């Protein structure tokens, strides 16, 4: 079985630009969540989507948005990029929304903002 796939693996953007990151969950998983991991820190929760609806949101500005498609894949969009947005962005999928459904992580997208 294919795991969670994220694209692109690496990305370099300039301040002020916008970026779209993509995630395909494990087949059969209906929940996707997004995390930002800054060097030396643990993953910080951004969004969770289940059945195409936002079910949870972390403490991130409105420049961050996401959506989930009918095939359960997901996009994370970040507008007006700042240098501080440079990080590894992780996507995780789970079978159901519940808190006891283990997360399966992708390898992440490394975003560098210059």
């Amino acid at each position, binding site marked *: 079985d294919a795991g969670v796939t994220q694209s692109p693996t690496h990305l370099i953007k300039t301040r002020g630009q916008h970026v779209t990151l993509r995630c395909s969950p494990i087949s059969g998983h209906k929940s996707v*969540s997004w995390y930002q991991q800054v060097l*030396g820190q643990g993953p910080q929760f951004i969004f969770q989507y289940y059945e195409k609806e936002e079910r949870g949101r972390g403490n991130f500005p409105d420049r961050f948005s996401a959506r989930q498609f009918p095939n359960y894949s997901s996009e994370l969009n970040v507008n007006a990029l700042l240098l501080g947005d440079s990080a590894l962005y992780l996507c995780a999928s789970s079978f159901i929304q519940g808190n006891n459904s283990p997360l399966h992580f992708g390898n992440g997208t490394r975003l560098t903002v210059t």
Partner: protein
Amino acid sequence: AQSVSQHNHHVILSEAASLELGCNYSYGGTVNLFWYVQYPGQHLQLLLKYFSGDPLVKGIKGFEAEFIKSKFSFNLRKPSVQWSDTAEYFCAVFSSGGSYIPTFGRGTSLIVHP
């Protein structure tokens, strides 16, 4: 808001040494607790989890963790580490019920010398 503290940021051990990584959380309600591991060059993966019942839970590769509710702790242990246990370890707390906001600790980097 819930928070997770991992007190050991860097741990260096020799093979066969015993391991204990600390994890404390702050949250007044019911929680689900996880340890995730990230081996070099790989994605985050679940090591073990606690939802309810026996507070001593066993995970993969000989790891175990004990939930002590009175201490708000969920420490990870292994009696005898191997070189292949070299990895980054993350404790995570998911609040049970209410909104979906998972919180990860900042991680502990474990290096095991052969």
